[in-house]
Every structure is written in structure tokens, then in C-alpha cells.
């Protein structure tokens, strides 16, 4: 399974990408100038160097260890993004605060809401077979 972090308009898109450990991520350049994507985060250190929009295939990186991988551009210092490498396949991404996790097995879980490194909220949940749960996080 391949996800992608596009560089477009001097921004990483998306700025936050959650993936399951063992996933490849492609880094296509959508701008008419160079970018140089790198990360010095412990779960994955890499430096893709400089490549053009026309250079295909776009470089890909395998994220094989769970953790937070911070992305930067060596040329444009304001460009930032995070890849959240998760050791669970049960996750989702929301931009409006509403989320839904489907097809979960029954059992005891720790449900986490990740806003950024400084703001991670968590709640223990117990899910019975066939049960639907509504869990809200109060971010205030």
C-alpha cells in the first residue's frame, strides 16, 4: 500500500499523514522548482535530495518502525509535515473533528486522539462484539 506526501505550492500536502507500519510513502514534487525532503527522526532518517516535477517515479520511502517522523525541506525551511507511523491498522484521519473507526474487533483498547506532539488525548475503551460506541474527546 502506497500513500503520498505531495509538495505543492511550497507546502507539504497533507501536513499530517497517519500510516500503518510497513507502508511505503511516495514524495512527488508538484512545484516547478526543487524541493529536498528529509527527516532526521529516529523511526526513519532519510534525505531524498533534489528532484524535479518531471522526475518519475517519485521517490518512495518505506516506514518500517512506528513513531513520529517529522518532514522538512532543506531548501524551504517553512515547509513542515508529520508522518505518524502507527503499529495498529485501526486509525483514521479527520479535518473537522468527526471520526469513525469501522470493522474493529472486540476487546480492550486505548483510543488516542493525536492533535500534535504536545496534544495527545487518550481514553480506554471496551468494545463488545457488534457494539457501536460513541467516544468524544474534550480538547478544552
Amino acid at each position, binding site marked *: 500500500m502506497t500513500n503520498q506526501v505531495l509538495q505543492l505550492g511550497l507546502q507539504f500536502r497533507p501536513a499530517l499523514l497517519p500510516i500503518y507500519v510497513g507502508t511505503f510513502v511516495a514524495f512527488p514534487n508538484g512545484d516547478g522548482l526543487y524541493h529536498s525532503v528529509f527527516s*532526521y527522526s529516529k523511526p526513519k532518517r*532519510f534525505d531524498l*535530495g*533534489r*528532484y524535479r516535477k518531471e522526475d518519475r517515479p517519485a521517490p518512495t520511502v518505506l516506514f518500517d518502525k512506528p513513531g513520529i517522523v517529522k518532514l*522538512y525541506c532543506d531548501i524551504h525551511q517553512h515547509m513542515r509535515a508529520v508522518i505518524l507511523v502507527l503499529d495498529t491498522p485501526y486509525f483514521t484521519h479527520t479535518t473537522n473533528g468527526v471520526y469513525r473507526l469501522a470493522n474493529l474487533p472486540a476487546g480492550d483498547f486505548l483510543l488516542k486522539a493525536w492533535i500534535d506532539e504536545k496534544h495527545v488525548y487518550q481514553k480506554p475503551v471496551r468494545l463488545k462484539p457488534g457494539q457501536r460506541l460513541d467516544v468524544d474527546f474534550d480538547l478544552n
Partner: protein
Amino acid sequence: MNIRALVGALLIFADYAQAQQLLDQTEDLLRLKSRDGLFDSQLTGLLDLEGYYVDQRPPGLLYEDESFFNPRLSLFVDMTLGSHFYGFLQARLDRGFDPGEKNFEARLDEYLVRWTPWNDSRLNLQFGKFATVVGSWVQRHDSWQNPLITAPLPYENLTPVSDEYLPASSTYFLARRHVPDMKDSWLPVIWGPVYATGWGLFGSIGKFDYAFDLKNAAISSPPYSWELNESLWSYPTFSGRVGFRPGPAWNHGISFSVGPYLSADAVDELPPGKGLGDYNQITLDYDVSYAWRSWQLWGEVFLNRFEVPSVGNADLLAYYLEAKYKITSGFYAAARWNQELFGTIKDAVGSPETWGNDIFRVDLALGYRFTRHLQSKLQYSFGRRNGPLQQGEQLVAAQITVRF
């Protein structure tokens, strides 16, 4: 704290996740922004710890003896007021502008105010004390961006031309080839980034960019002459660069600079009827760079003329080729080939003689970026001049940089 302990502490710091997080957060702490976003300022900095070992008397703009330690703290302030006004400051605490020049000094190396009339980058006007527009090395000369520790040869090798001690004749001038360089009075082709004072305008239109400045000192002039003073417009130097970017990989530029290079101290030694404005430094420079994947390549070639009183035109050609290759995500290798070739002047009997000792130098470096905030470099250089007089044939330098 001794140097070894300090370096050890920095290396431990490199692996300390919380310290890295702290430096990440420091960027936000050092930012000052008004609520309406009209005013925005950001303080950043570089802390360099570098040491040099030279097997002989150090060459060029390295002062001190065979080995020395050269710490440097550089602070940068970027300020914006709306979308049309910008200000910049660079202050340094170090051992002089050039390594080992003094024991301690605090300076304001750069300051400028800039006005951008339109919302795009077609035109920018600025006044202050800022780096020259000539060449391409200046744009990447700080310790974080320079793959090596020293500057390319044209930016630091001293030629026998002096801004204050004038030769009485070509015989005296030619005799300077046989003595070690005089660091307080001889001049390079271009003195590092040349933070002289004056006006500048620059911009970019499509694939072209341009930059011009009118400054108070020639590009070869020493740092003390760059300051704002009464003689700001007495003997100005006009410089410019036109760049062309056919695509992301290539960048070409042609630069020029014309202006008097003699200091006021030389007035009494001038030939009768001549003034400081009669003797110019005239420079042409072509620069090119290429980048793709893990490779970055740069090159510059200078054609330079000093109009020397009682001697005539002293011409030289200087160039360098430089490459950087990223071996892994943090580890890189860099190499630079430098050469200066001196032209000829006529000696006392009218025969052509080269007025300097041709020199080549090869610089090799390995660098490692531990994090976004910590980098280390190790450089070895070997240089050789024509003739028996050698200066610093071998140089070893190490540098650790913390960026915040």
C-alpha cells in the same frame, strides 16, 4: 569548560531527543509577532566551534599561528512590517571577522531596511550594510550552508596588491612575490562576503534575476572600510549580477564590480596629479551551479584587474569548482579545486614578469548532520604556490555548528 568537554557535551546533546525538541520549540519562542500579523520578527543563530591546524604560517585570511581555536556566535534578526517592508540584522561575537584575527570582538556585521513596492518579487530596494551581489558563494557562505569550512581561494587568498602601501615602481611591486603575505594590508580578489555599506536593488522576472549595489568600498576591501562613515559616497563601487535559471537544476550568473580600492592612507603615496579615484578594481565573474538528487556542483571564474599606481594593470584569473555529495541522510563529502593565475606586468627593463605566485589548492571535507540543529565538518586542504615560498601547504580544520 575546556574545548573537549564542550564538544563532548554537544555530541551528547545531539542524541538527546528532548534537547532537539527544545531547539525545535526555540524557533517559536524566539519569534515575536503582533496580534494583527502586521509586525513579525524572528531571531535565529549559529554557534560555531572551529579549530585549525596549519603546518606553516597560515595562508590568506587565517590569522594566528599554526593551530588555534575559533568560536563564533552569529545572531540573525529578520523583521517584516506588512508585506512591503523588511529589516535584517546580523551580529557576531567572535575572534575577529576573519579567523584568529583578534582575541574577542562583538560586531554588527549586517543591517538593512528593504522596501518591496509590489506584491511580487520584481523589484526590491534596500539600504544598509549587507553582502555583495557579486558571485554565488556569498549566498551560501554561512557555516551551515558552506559544505567546507574555509572560503574558496578567490575569497581569501591575499595578492601582493595593497590598499595602503603603494609600490614606488614595478621592481618593488614584483619583490613582494618573495615575501610572506602581509595580512593587514594586502588584498584578495574579493574579501569574503564584503559587508560594505550602500544601496541595493534586486528582483526576479521569470527565469531571470538581477541585483545591483552601490557601496562605499571595493569588493577586495578589508572589513574596517565597510562601515558607514563620512566618505560613504566619495569613492563608490558599483557592482551587479544578472542570473538565469533555465530550470530547477541549473543556475547561471554574470557579475561585475568597478570601483576605487585604495584607502585614504594611500593618498600621500600617489603619483603627482593622481587621486584615489584614478585606481580601480575591475572584476568580471561567471558563476554556475547544478543540482540533482544527492549532487550539488558549483563553479566560479573571476577575471580581475587592479590598477596599481606606478605599475599599471595587474590582472589575474581565479576560479574554483566545488562538489557536494550526500552519501546518507546525514553524511556528505565535499571537494573543491581552487586556482589563481597571475598575469604579467613589465619589469624595470620592460620584460614581462608574473606579479604573483600562481597557486592551486584542493579542499576536501566530510560532514555529518546529526539533526536539524547540529552539524560537524572535518576539512583537509593542500595548496602549493609557484616558487620557493610556501604558506600553509597543509591545513586541517574541524567545525561543529549548532543552529537555532
